[in-house]
């Protein structure tokens, strides 16, 4: 699958014509020109981001590693067609990872995945939070995330954990900024409702 570069503002948004600053883009051009030394540097910069976001979205480390490898291979193949200044390499990579996650979930469900309607059952045996070694609180967050519909979870992870601006998320998810705002707001409210009953066990007390 050839993945087109995302825009910075998403669908229907006015694009900023200024070239984006993108150190990874410069490295990718050197890679395309045959420089043998940049692949390791690009991997060091980008693979952790791809793996982190895939783990949060899939809730499974082994699957997230497969997705990360596939996304990076697509990046290497895309290198010779890369258009500098159109989008950041990291934005493109996030987009590929998100689409691969959706495809993966769709395959798991026999070809059908309603992105907005299906809460995700948590894979308790191999939860990402467990693997992240971040204890019960991150476990609880991951468990709550997995109960969100797919697109809400993606938007929430990109906004609140990857800390990306809404226009960039719009480009990654191929939706409008308003849709991103709506997804993240609803997702955060749903998380708060899910976690409200677990305040005490998460170290918050009322009295």
């Amino acid at each position, binding site marked *: 699958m050839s993945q087109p570069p995302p825009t910075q503002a998403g669908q229907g948004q006015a694009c900023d014509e200024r070239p984006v600053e993108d150190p990874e883009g410069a490295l990718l051009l050197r*890679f*395309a020109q*045959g420089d*043998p030394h940049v*692949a*390791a540097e*690009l*991997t*060091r910069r980008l*693979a*952790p*981001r791809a*793996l*982190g976001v895939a*783990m*949060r979205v899939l809730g499974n480390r082994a699957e997230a*590693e497969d997705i*990360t*490898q596939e996304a*990076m*291979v697509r990046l*290497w*193949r895309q*290198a*010779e067609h890369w258009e500098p200044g159109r989008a950041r390499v990291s934005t493109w990579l996030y987009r590929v990872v998100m689409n691969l996650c959706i495809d993966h979930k769709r395959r798991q469900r026999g070809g059908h995945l309603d992105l907005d309607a299906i809460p995700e059952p948590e894979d308790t045996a191999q939860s990402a939070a467990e693997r*992240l070694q*971040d204890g019960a*609180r*991150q476990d*609880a*967050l991951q468990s709550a995330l997995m109960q969100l519909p797919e697109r809400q979870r993606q938007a929430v992870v990109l906004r*609140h*954990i*990857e*800390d990306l601006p809404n226009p960039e998320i719009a480009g990654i998810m191929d939706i409008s900024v308003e849709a991103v705002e709506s997804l993240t707001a609803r997702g*955060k409210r749903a*998380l*708060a*409702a899910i*976690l*409200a009953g677990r*305040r005490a066990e*998460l*170290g*918050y*007390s*009322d*009295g």
Partner: protein
Amino acid sequence: MVDKTDRHAPGQPGGQADAEQSRGEDDLFADALVDDLFAEARDCRPAEVPVHLEQSIIREAVAIQAARAAAVQSQGADWAKGRTERGRTGLMAQLRGVIAAIGGWPAVGGLATASAAGLWIGLAPPSFIPDPVALAGIDLSASDLPDDSYDLALVLSEETE
């Protein structure tokens, strides 16, 4: 871990206003909890990529780079080969084919000689062959020919005498 107890103590139960206030504070608690968890999740980044995965990704990169370099090299060779093959399919190539079909360059030499002899016989037939020009009732002389045909007219007049 952050304890929000001191910052957001919930209201005491009792009365609708208290209930609404309590509900609002519950929301604040929940929002604060989610924000704290998000902040902790951000601190967990970046995810640690296992060495085997990193090595595998880099190996793929090297393989793709090598394949790309080989393809570029192959394209260069194909281009040069294409030029040669294009030379073999043009007008000259067709002419070479015709020459080969009639027996090569020696045959072409023979053909040229025969053609020249035929032309000569046509213009200056031997005495036992009727002159086609005279048969046509044309009185050919040097004055009938253009100036730039002087040499040819001279030859013709000499031969027909």
